[in-house]
């Protein structure tokens, strides 16, 4: 909507840009120098995870490691100290189930909003979309209190419930826009043939929404995976702790973990999102294009 870029042909852009590339070496040098600012922290992380604590303390933080073997110790010890296995499983569950349910519910809602005509459609859309306009801080205290009261604080169910809810409004916006642009011929035909609404939704609309659904799913999954705020407030017990929350262990009380360990943990916690991004780069870019996020 904001970016009217739906007809971008990436290959053509690439070709066009390559053709117009200036071969001025000074600007390459400047570019390389500037990108050092982005490279150095990554380089620092990569050398640090191969150091022992003693080695890290004794040398310059940017020095090359003496060997590669400490990484095994670092990884094992980070994994065990922060109980990252549990954090991984929890976050994966929250991310896959939460974002999955959210996108599915959003598709259902978008179907109702675009394929069935009824009064005050806009009101109901705005009601759902209103879930995106408030800052997260405003949810914290009431949720914390209510979760406590009904006994779902620090439970997997409670975490999942919130993550699903918070991930609904945005996909509703995206899928509603998408469905509005999708031809109605097929579903009208199916309806004529006597298919129920649910059947139309399930076997005609859903298969046609796989693209935008994947894109929004990935965005919401990444959001849940990265979330620190809500998992700190609503799920701070070891069994339900998210991966980002378990990273906090190294920052918290009474640990003597060195930067080598903390950085290893940070890298481990980021790996799934990185792998996902590299594998599904196109879908992410697609998501960015349709959403500008």
């Amino acid at each position, binding site marked *: 909507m904001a970016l009217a870029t739906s007809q971008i042909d990436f290959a053509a852009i690439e070709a066009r840009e390559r053709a117009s590339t200036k071969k001025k070496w000074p600007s390459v040098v400047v570019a390389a120098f500037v990108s050092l600012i982005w490279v150095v922290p990554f380089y620092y992380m990569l050398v640090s995870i191969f150091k022992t604590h003693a080695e890290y303390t004794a040398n310059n933080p940017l020095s090359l490691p003496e060997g590669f073997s400490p990484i095994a110790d670092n990884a094992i010890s980070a994994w065990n100290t922060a109980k990252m296995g549990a954090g991984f499983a929890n976050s994966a569950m929250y991310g896959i189930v939460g974002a999955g349910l959210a996108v599915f519910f959003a598709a259902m809602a978008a179907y109702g909003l675009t394929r069935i005509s009824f009064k005050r459609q806009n009101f109901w859309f705005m009601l759902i979309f209103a879930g995106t306009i408030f800052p997260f801080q405003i949810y914290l205290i009431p949720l*914390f*209190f209510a979760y*406590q*009261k*009904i*006994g*779902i*604080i620090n*439970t997997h*169910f*409670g975490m999942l*419930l919130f993550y699903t809810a918070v991930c609904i409004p945005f996909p509703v916006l995206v899928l509603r826009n998408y469905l509005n642009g999708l031809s109605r011929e097929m579903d009208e035909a199916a309806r004529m043939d006597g298919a129920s*609404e*649910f059947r139309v939704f399930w076997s005609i609309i859903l298969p046609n929404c796989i693209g935008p659904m994947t894109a929004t799913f990935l965005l919401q999954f990444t959001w849940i995976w990265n979330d620190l705020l809500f998992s*700190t407030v609503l799920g*701070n*017990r*070891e069994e339900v702790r998210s991966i980002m929350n378990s990273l906090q262990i190294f920052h*918290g*009380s*009474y640990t*003597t973990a*060195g930067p080598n360990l903390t950085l290893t943990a940070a890298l481990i916690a980021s790996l799934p999102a990185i792998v996902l991004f590299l594998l599904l780069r196109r879908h992410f870019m697609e998501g960015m294009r349709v959403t500008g996020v």
Partner: protein
Amino acid sequence: MNFKTKLLSLAFAGLMSASVVSAYAAEVTLVHDKAFWAEALQKVGDAATKATGVPMKQNAYSPPEQYKAYMQSSIAANDPPDIFTWWTGGVYEELIKTGAIAELDDVWAEMIKSGEFSEGVRDFYKVGDHVYGVPLHLSRWIVLYNKADYAKAGISEPKTWAEFVSNAEKLKAAGITPFVATTQDGWRGFIWFEEIMLRTNPEAYMGLHTGKVAYDSEPVRNAFKIWADWYAKGYFSDPRSTEEVADFAKGKGSMNLIGDWAIGLVEKAGMKPGADFDAFIMPNMDAALPSSTILEGGPIMLSKKGLAKPEVVNALKYFVSIDGANVWAAASGNSLGNSKANPPNVIVKKISDDVAAMKTVAFPRWWEAVPADLQGEMVAELNRFMLTPTMETAESVMANTQKLNAAYWAEKQ
């Protein structure tokens, strides 16, 4: 389609009730914020399970502030845990005022009758006419010192303030940083402030907590002058370190002023108590004053709901029994004041003997004694001094803390 909706809500309701039901199984869960003692507490729990027949578990919420938030909202929602750890002082009184906390007078009567606990320990947990907690740990705040460093500098345990100061001087001259002190985890800022106040002017130290002594008064300024002077002389290690215990164990400073609960942690970091490090009670500036230490006593408490459950009371009784205290001492290095139980390590034993010989009196820790509402902001101010330890910072720290303090006591009246 309506059917689907129903199905969905049924599934939700089912999931929800499953998670609620599981909380009602017959077991005792000690809720606490001491994640670093989780294993040790579970060891006591396992022993209690064997002794009482009811499974006893522990559940850690960390960090402490998160735990406080949990307790506040659980009491506001009228559903406090049965048995849990807490702190003494202002937060203790606040919690008791809610009316949700059980009186443990009967439990204490038994504990004293058995001859294992003294009335002095009981009174430590008394508010008004009733006792509301039993000790989780009773820790004296002492100075741990590195024996090898002391030998190298040719010094011994100080008996007077002058000796204490000259020890620091000699260590510095020998190229050793005398004191490890950090702002790690954000709560440590009060430690040296409290100790210098106690050593130079115990009366003013106590007055701070009742609003009678201002945070910008002369006794406080005097304490800051000593503290800033020691910083200027390079007596303290880097306050920005995030590993105080390891710093001490690695010899980055040769003395560490800390609660005796840290002995177990130093041991874990590779130093042997008694052989590699030992401890002393810091001497007073005015030799005429009685020997004193800061005493920190973490309580275990019951809610009224918990007191009504016999299995919860039995678990509590087991914890303070001789067996319970022994398991706890071996697992965590903590003493909980049971005089018939084994001392947890040689250093605690030595300090206990010193306390008996010198008739050392106990003072409350600043952390517990300061009004709960001021605790967080004030300790942050004290941390700020440690990070820029000049008299200039001290003046602004004194001004800020006094502003908070004055506003608090004005509202109280």
